């Protein structure tokens, strides 16, 4: 029986660009190039490795995002995923994590799945909570923040390196897994992969396909409200000295002045 893997990937503004907020306090997506969240590449990579080990597996990549989010799906397809689903709807603009997770949960259920894989966090919202929320909504075990993952005989196992301990986890499928950037470098798409990706199917769904009302998502339907966003004032230029043999002592002087010594 085929193992159906759904990988959730997010399209995000490039972290090395000048990211900022638009007038409605949502992320300004026009001024900065977007890309597949780098941390989701690790999720795609683990899906590919799990699929390689399985007799028969199919990987669907799923995103909720604007028109350009197709680029993120293409990247994942060129890495080796089989097909893609793009949930796009004008009413989604400004959706918070509760709305996003609702849309993802409905889309995952409609697509059909045995295993859902996500990144550890997006590189823009960086909340790192969507995977747990998704598991709660889907009613499946959460096997999250894994630095190692394996799927065998309907069971997922993995290692979670926490603050105070490292844990070995186990759950039965269907389950939701999130992987960290310690899980292993993501592969680069090959030329062949890039060419093949052009022919792979990308399905487009909107809110009505998922039987979600417009007021359940978007800025209006948000369960949180951003009241203000202000750029942090640039740090005032500090003192910079060149080490001419006394750099360590000079620095100690500064630390003493600041009462750290």
């Amino acid at each position: 029986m085929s193992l159906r893997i759904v990988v959730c990937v997010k399209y995000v503004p490039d972290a090395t660009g000048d990211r900022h907020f638009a007038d409605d306090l949502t992320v300004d997506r026009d001024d900065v190039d977007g890309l597949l969240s780098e941390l989701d590449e690790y999720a795609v990579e683990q899906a590919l490795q799990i699929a390689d080990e399985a007799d028969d597996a199919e990987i669907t990549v799923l995103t909720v995002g604007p028109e350009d989010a197709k680029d993120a799906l293409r990247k994942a397809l060129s890495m080796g995923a089989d097909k893609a689903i793009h949930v796009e709807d004008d009413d989604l603009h400004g959706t918070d994590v509760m709305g996003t997770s609702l849309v993802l949960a409905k889309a995952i259920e409609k697509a059909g799945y045995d295993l859902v894989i996500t990144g550890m966090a997006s590189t823009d919202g960086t909340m790192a909570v969507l995977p747990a929320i998704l598991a709660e909504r889907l009613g499946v075990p959460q096997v999250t923040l894994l630095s190692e993952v394996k799927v065998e005989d309907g069971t997922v196992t993995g290692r979670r390196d926490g603050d105070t301990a490292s844990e070995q986890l186990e759950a039965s499928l269907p389950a939701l897994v999130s992987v960290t950037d310690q899980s292993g470098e993501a592969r680069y798409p090959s030329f062949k992969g890039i060419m093949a990706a052009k022919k792979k199917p990308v399905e487009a769904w909107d809110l009505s396909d998922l039987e979600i009302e417009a007021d359940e998502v978007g800025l209006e339907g948000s369960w949180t409200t951003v009241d203000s966003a202000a750029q942090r004032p640039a740090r005032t230029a500090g003192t910079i000295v060149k080490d001419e043999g006394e750099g360590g002592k000079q620095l100690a002087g500064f630390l003493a002045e600041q009462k750290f010594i």
Partner: protein
Amino acid sequence: MAEVLVYVDHVDGAVRKPTLELLTLARRIGEPVAVALGAGAADTAAVLAEHGAVKVLTADAPEFTEYLVVPKVDALQAAYDAVSPVAVLVPSSAEGKEIAARLAVRIGSGIITDAVDLEAGDEGPVATQAAFAASFTTKSRVSKGTPVITVKPNSAPVEAAPAAGAVEALAVTFGALATGTKVVSRTPRESTGRPELTEAAIVVSGGRGVNGAENFHIIEALADSLGAAVGASRAAVDAGWYPHSNQVGQTGKSVSPQLYIASGISGAIQHRAGMQTSKTIVAINKDSEAPIFDLVDYGVVGDLFAVVPQLTEEIQARKG
């Protein structure tokens, strides 16, 4: 007065500092009721009472250690049902965020994560967040349900404010999902004797410039002279020079100490995301063009192998 539920992060009864900070913030919006789970839960009561908890709800059961996250959500939900609080505050650890998130969906509430400050507002608590690698400061509210907010370490001073701290046993019924993810084994992290990275007042970090695991003792010696925690960049961690648990940055720990000293670290955006809110920033780097120098209060352009040992020696001399 309105009650505020505070989730307690503790290790065998020893309450971690971020929870005491949460109690300070909770008192700005109501009366803190603490929820402590697992082994040693009742032992937390004295210190929680000293910091303002009017009540401490405790529960212990094997489920809390044998299964991941969900049993604690069941317990927090039981506390929520028992108290009907005006807000739920949880420390922003990886597990804390997951617990808060699942509770929020269950009770039909919005969630705000990684708040760095919290104040009472006309329409409920207002949280300050640092966005886009801390280059923006936002103020947000939960506009639906009972606000569930996770708060980063070092976001508020720890203040004593003695309260009753009456201990009450919390009755918890575990749901069907509680036993979904089994913890097969657990290997505790060995203590280095140094302060906890996210809680430390001073953090001394090394990067690729440290050039080898065998050189990290230079960074450790400086840290020890200041009673500091040791951090590392991802480049140093990926090279296997220092454990991942010490990584500072977007995918490592986020720190906000009084003093951050970066040696041989360039200051890539993902590293900055984890340390940009430090009060005082110092860097030692041989490249005067390194982006880390844009952040510093004091920078030394020089070879860390000369500067760091001299600094350590001078600190020890000054301390006498």
